């Protein structure tokens, strides 16, 4: 049992399920006549408690899907998750994961769509990943998957700009930022490219060893 199973929501879901199960097993074993009391107990056992259990399990399940451990549980994503939590890695993903705001949810924080329907779109995309994993990539060797699996569409700078607004003086002080300001905002130049801040997951690139010098600065991942 994982730590998530001990959260208050999970415990509430377990409790509701246990009460519902006790009512239903009692009903199945005793086979009582359909009296008013039986109807009320069934309403609780088939309706109220399972709905309570499902609602809390939904929220807990959603929380579980935002954890890096969840993403890394598919073997083709394990190297990405491992690199992200590697304190010695200089990749963008790892640098951001060391920020407590990203922490153990760094995959979700960086890859989530933002905006009004961002959560729903992100979850739909996640379902697609799970489907593709079980239908296409489950048996793919790791080395082959590093070459074949790519992000579906270019990583949007908008996601970077959730924290790095590109408006503050500290950011605009960098000559490269000033020179490429419009391109960055339009997304025609990627923040996570070899010429700028380096790849998020450099181990997947043939030229992954190329890391810009400014990344060695301790606060390079800090929001500005």
């Amino acid at each position, binding site marked *: 049992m994982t730590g998530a199973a001990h959260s208050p929501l999970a415990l509430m879901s377990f409790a509701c399920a246990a009460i*519902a199960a006790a009512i239903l097993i009692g009903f199945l074993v005793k086979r009582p*006549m359909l009296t008013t009391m039986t109807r009320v107990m069934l309403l609780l056992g088939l309706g109220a408690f399972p709905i309570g259990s499902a609602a809390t399990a939904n929220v807990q399940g959603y929380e579980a899907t935002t954890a890096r451990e969840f993403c890394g549980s598919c073997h083709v994503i394990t190297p990405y998750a491992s690199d992200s939590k590697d304190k010695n890695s200089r990749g963008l993903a790892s640098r951001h994961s060391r920020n407590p705001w990203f922490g153990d949810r760094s995959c979700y924080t960086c890859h989530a769509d933002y905006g009004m329907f961002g959560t729903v779109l992100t979850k739909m995309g996640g379902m697609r990943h799970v489907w593709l994993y079980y239908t296409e990539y489950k048996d793919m060797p790791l080395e082959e998957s590093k070459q074949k699996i790519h992000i579906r569409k270019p990583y949007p700078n908008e996601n970077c700009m959730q924290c790095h607004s590109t408006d503050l003086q500290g950011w605009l002080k960098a000559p490269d930022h000033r020179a490429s300001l419009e391109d960055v905002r339009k997304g025609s130049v990627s923040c996570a490219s070899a010429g700028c801040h380096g790849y998020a997951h450099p181990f997947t690139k043939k030229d992954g060893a190329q890391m810009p010098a400014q990344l060695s600065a301790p606060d390079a991942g800090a929001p500005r």
Partner: protein
Amino acid sequence: MSDEKLHHTPRILRVAAFLALVGLGFMMWSLVDPRPGPVLVGLSLGQAIGTLSFAIYAVVAISDIRRRMR
């Protein structure tokens, strides 16, 4: 209510109770083992089965009420 209907109704509800237990089992599995497979099964199949079981109860309850009102 006729004897035939009195026997028939609990049988459907026993099926509903069994389905609900299966659905709850899937949902609890997703909490205990939060990997993509169990979470997908628990939050889709588990909830679909649970919803079906409650729908059966609702149909039985509504038809029972309508029969009593006649």
